């Protein structure tokens, strides 16, 4: 008897099946791609799903304009290596159009929903593939793999389509779309194990580096041009790495000396705090903040 496939093989095969279903059933899909680790995993899966052919859908980055340069560099390099078209739509564009108005100091993270919905409308997309995982947050635990959004881009947790076997239903009417989450069943640990197995190159900030931070509300907030220290805060330079990478103004690193995927896996396996709990200021605002944002069209 040959040995069973590993859990990574199982997850990979499932994700590839989902990506091929999108290509087979959807007319105008995009793959949401930021250069962050989950989207790099997603792109690798797409690469393997269609090899030796090209990834049959463009990439779309919803850009807050507050980026880590290492991540943008990785985004552009991977898109160029695979010869896939990269579309960028920016929150700043939405601000210029007046569809996004932020209060002084408000994070642009939630505003990405508006820009994404505008891009979906502009590009007439019927599917947007994303790297969200059900283990991230409890509002995601009930998310479908193919998640239906109405003409306002809203997620209605009460009116989700039942999803049975691997018979996904991506059927949409005019102006509606589906969000597709091929790595729904992956955990943070699975993602890191896959990165190690595939020898995926990540932006360097996912590994330990020295960075100026301040301690704020139990988190380590990075000190950048956009996020200067507040009055009375002491700037420290610490060894840190990012577990998630989003908008600069609301993503925090964790203290770490892990310099390789294997060392990150060891840390993740022993982690005491969830990925979002350790790193995202906006998710802490309210227990239900992710759920609210999702209902409004967030990733």
């Amino acid at each position: 008897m040959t040995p069973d496939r590993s859990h990574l093989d199982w997850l990979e095969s499932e994700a590839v099946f989902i990506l091929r279903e999108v290509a087979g059933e959807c007319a105008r899909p995009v793959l949401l791609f930021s250069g962050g680790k989950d989207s790099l995993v997603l792109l690798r899966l797409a690469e393997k799903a269609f090899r030796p052919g090209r990834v049959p859908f463009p990439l779309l980055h919803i850009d807050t304009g507050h980026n880590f340069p290492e991540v943008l560099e990785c985004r552009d390099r991977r898109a160029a290596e695979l010869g896939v078209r990269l579309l960028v739509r920016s929150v700043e564009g939405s601000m210029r159009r007046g569809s996004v108005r932020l209060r002084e100091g408000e994070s642009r993270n939630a505003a990405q929903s508006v820009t994404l919905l505008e891009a979906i409308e502009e590009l007439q997309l019927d599917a947007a593939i994303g790297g969200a995982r059900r283990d991230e947050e409890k509002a995601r635990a009930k998310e479908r793999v193919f998640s239906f959004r109405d003409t306002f881009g809203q997620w209605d947790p009460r009116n989700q389509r039942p999803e049975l076997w691997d018979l996904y239903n991506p059927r949409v009417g005019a102006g509606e779309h589906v969000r597709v989450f091929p790595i729904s069943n992956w955990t943070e640990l699975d993602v890191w194990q896959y990165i190690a197995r595939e020898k995926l190159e990540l932006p360097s900030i996912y590994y330990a580096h020295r960075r100026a931070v301040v301690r704020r509300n139990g988190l380590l907030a990075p000190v950048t041009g956009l996020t200067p220290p507040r009055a009375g805060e002491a700037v420290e330079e610490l060894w840190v790495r990012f577990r998630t990478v989003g908008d600069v103004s609301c993503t925090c690193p964790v203290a770490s000396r892990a310099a390789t995927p294997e060392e990150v896996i060891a840390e993740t396996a022993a982690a005491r705090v969830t990925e979002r709990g350790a790193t995202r200021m906006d998710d802490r605002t309210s227990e239900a903040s992710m759920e609210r944002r999702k209902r409004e069209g967030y990733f």
Partner: protein
Amino acid sequence: MSTDDAGVLAFKNGLRFFGREIHPAKKAEIMERPAEAAPDLARPPHEGGNSTVLRFITCGSVDDGKSTLIGRLLHDTRQILEDQFAALAQASRRRGFAAADLSLVTDGLEAEREQGITIDVAYRYFATPRRKFIIADTPGHEQYTRNMVTGASTAGAAVLLADASKGLLAQGRRHLYLAHLLGIREIVVAVNKMDLVDHDERVFDAVRASFAAFAAPLRIPSLRFVPVCALAGEMVVARGARMPWYRGPTLLEILEGIEPERAARARPFRFSVQLVQRASGARRYLGRIAAGAVRKGDEVLVLPASRRTRVAAIHTLEGERAVARAGDSVALALADELDVSRGDSIAHAAQPPRATRELDATLVWLAEQPLAPRARYLLKHTTRTVGARVAGVAHVVDIHALEPRAGRSSLAMNDIARVALELAQPVFADTYAEERATGAFILIDAASGHTAAAGMIR
């Protein structure tokens, strides 16, 4: 969330802990220990890449401890991290408990808390050094048929909760029936709340006997029983000290030992084309092997073309291989140039699926919109979508009596019926009992695009 929480408090205390209120002191006592011990324990090492995946469903009614059992599984396998645990402890204190109530791990969405209901199937994850687990956690009350059918459709095993102090109830019979209907071959009955019956072996034996008697005519391939106390963590992950008379495996040991994929590999080869790729001259057919195995050089039958050919190459995600098996996503190249498109079938030449435009099926109605007799639906079977209509309803199963009742022509949400379907194009099918992947289908409402029903071919 303080105002929301007050409502939940009333709801949860009223429902989830109904029937347990006679033991408040006992509850506080047994919950203290794990709550304090938790943050000091590290998660077990995970053998990267060497474990397989088991998907299972948990079924139970509101007050038989399902949430506590799931919380216990996650907690004792060290999946609950500090921030989650802190949130849990905080919520528990607000709800009047001294220690963290593990059942709150499965607490749902704000939208649900507002209404005091559980809407939907939730998926939860944990891993041991041996394997990764995906739990489909289905609510036990509202719309339980729809939710349980959804969760069970992808499950390789079912854990049915029974309350030791109540034995086999009507709900337990329904769960067993539905798990069996959805083709789950591995069913584990966790006889919970053994603390309420003084951990008495005779009570466990009596519950087991009643389940076994009810299940006998269903001929479930594997039906196992384990006595547990989820609240105190006995026989879930750890054995505990109060049931020395039980010498069988713990619930986790049972789940670690189940091998649902083995059976799928022994069956004849089934493959449905997802996409056709024209790369470097030769055509490749992309898809995931639904059943059996395929070797380079195997003779296969292509449907609907009804042509025989040989497998010229198998490209897996890791490169070309001589063999691939059920569950593998591959690209196949065939020896002959044939007209093959998405939704076509490539199968074992000597034991092919049945090409048919008429189906005898068990249908579970999922949509709020009832079945419109003679209306046109879309039927998605494997990667193939065809027009369909329900030509007749033979009977509807009375879910309470678990008996067929004739005389209905429409179906409402949660109805289970035996129907005849007519299809605009053939599908290439096996019976659901033979092969889930090629025996299952969904009906899609052609007008709204919503999923209307789940079907199993007889």
